[in-house]
């Protein structure tokens, strides 16, 4: 690859390094600070901070599968091998994002649905999507003639996009525990949720596209800072994850089962795991704002908290930490492996 082409790739890699770092850093900020629903049907409301990690990850995987469709059609129309390579890398990355999305959804579902896996239509749809696209690699590796391999695997990548559509509409065609897009949008428009969600979805989208663009163009070019940035992404992700789970390791978090509030919303007492009642005299301000849901129920109910020396601290649910780790791992490792991936004979 020529010097000019390598310069362009290095520029892209630099952009990827910056955006990916910003993306994972923003995911960490959201995991610690972002708003969550005042009241949820089940589990800890902070588990809904997964919205800022799981949804952008799912969207990125759909986007990458969509790019595989476009490149597949481009190959079928023009027979230019570069489109076949683009299709291959799109499917590889979409699968990585897809698997991470499935596991992050399961971790969230364990808390907010009551079971990690219950063959919910969306869960089934995404599982089938991932398995279906694995067929792309099986088809590819089973044909030795390069032209035939490109032709058939591109046709497969185009056809398999129906699985993306099926998984997306699964929550619409039958009853599902998974929310529909308009319900998520309703929450995103509440309070300052959009302030966290908007930049996150934008950064995740650009990260995914740049990851693909850099990997398909890297060839023999060297972009050493890509590894450094990948390492930093991992470091931010692991450090933030450890900070999020530290209350589980050092304190004894408990679940709030019930609460008594004063008329002004201060906490008089909490009923916690084990049925123990903790009184606060004088009452303390609720760490959750607002202190009550619209039906008057104390918004602290369901939260995981630590109680020490008369103060209540809200602990973010562990599923958020796990999903932050998943996301930083896939982005960091894909960046670290970009040079090796680029040299794979697609």
């Amino acid at each position, binding site marked *: 690859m020529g010097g000019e082409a390598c310069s362009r790739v290095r520029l892209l890699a630099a952009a990827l390094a910056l955006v990916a770092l910003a993306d994972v850093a923003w995911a960490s900020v959201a995991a610690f600070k972002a708003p969550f629903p005042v*009241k949820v*049907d089940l589990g800890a409301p902070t588990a809904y901070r997964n919205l800022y990690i799981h949804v952008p990850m799912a969207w990125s995987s759909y986007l990458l599968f969509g790019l595989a469709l476009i490149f597949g059609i481009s190959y079928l129309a023009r027979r230019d091998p570069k489109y076949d390579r683009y299709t291959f890398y799109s499917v590889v990355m979409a699968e990585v994002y897809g698997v991470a999305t499935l596991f992050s959804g399961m971790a969230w579902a364990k808390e907010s649905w009551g079971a990690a896996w219950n063959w919910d239509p969306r869960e089934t749809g995404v599982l*089938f999507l991932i398995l279906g696209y694995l067929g792309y690699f099986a088809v590819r590796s089973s044909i030795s003639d390069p032209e035939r391999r490109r032709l058939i695997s591109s046709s497969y990548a185009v*056809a398999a996009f129906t699985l993306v559509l099926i998984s997306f509409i699964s929550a619409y065609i*039958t009853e599902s525990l998974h929310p*529909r897009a308009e*319900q998520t949008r*309703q929450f995103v428009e509440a309070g300052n949720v959009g302030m966290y969600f908007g930049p996150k979805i934008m950064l995740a989208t650009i990260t995914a596209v740049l990851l693909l663009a850099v990997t398909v163009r890297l060839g023999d070019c060297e972009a050493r800072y890509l590894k450094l940035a990948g390492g930093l992404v991992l470091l931010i992700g692991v450090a933030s994850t450890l900070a999020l789970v530290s209350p589980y390791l050092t304190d004894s978090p408990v679940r709030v*089962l019930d609460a008594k509030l004063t008329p002004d919303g201060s906490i008089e007492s909490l009923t916690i795991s084990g049925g123990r009642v903790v009184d606060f005299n004088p009452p303390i*301000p609720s760490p959750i704002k607002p202190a009550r849901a619209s039906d008057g129920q104390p918004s602290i109910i369901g939260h995981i908290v630590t109680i020490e020396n008369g103060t209540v601290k809200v602990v973010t649910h562990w599923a958020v930490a796990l999903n932050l780790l998943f996301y930083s791992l896939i982005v960091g490792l894909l960046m670290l492996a970009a040079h090796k991936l680029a040299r794979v004979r697609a």
Partner: protein
Amino acid sequence: MIAMKSSRVKAAIAAVALAVILAGIGYASVASSSYKSVSDLLEAKRTVKATVEADVVPIGRGVYTLILGDKVYTLEARGSYGVARDPAGEVYAVFLISDGKHTMLAFYDATDEYMAYQMGSGLSSSVVLSVTYEPGLTAILKTTDGDVQLPVVLVNSILKGCHTSYSQGAATVS
């Protein structure tokens, strides 16, 4: 040129045919994931694990006796559900589910604490449950109105969706 055009058409036809097949299998797999009803469960000939959606039938209030297998439980009925205690003091949640045609007794082996947390002041009028159904397993519920024999479903977990959570507005930690 003609050969290339012909192979393009073949590839397009193959892609469309494969898309239709994948869409069919995908749709079938998603559709088969939809919730079962109480009547669907009762049609099972062998033990099945399923996700069932049903209405909750009020169980009343008072203290009843529940006989399930060779065990006798004291059942404290609390409106939408009851708490069954066996002689060893183990507690279970019990509630009645129906699809309008048939009624079953749902038996939930959960800790008292988790029940309290999950059920709050009571079950909602409709529930989605992850269950195991063994055909032939029945319970006798002895109430003040007489004895009722009901098919039993063992509850693995009470499932909740995210739908209403998103309309509750946003909260933050101060």
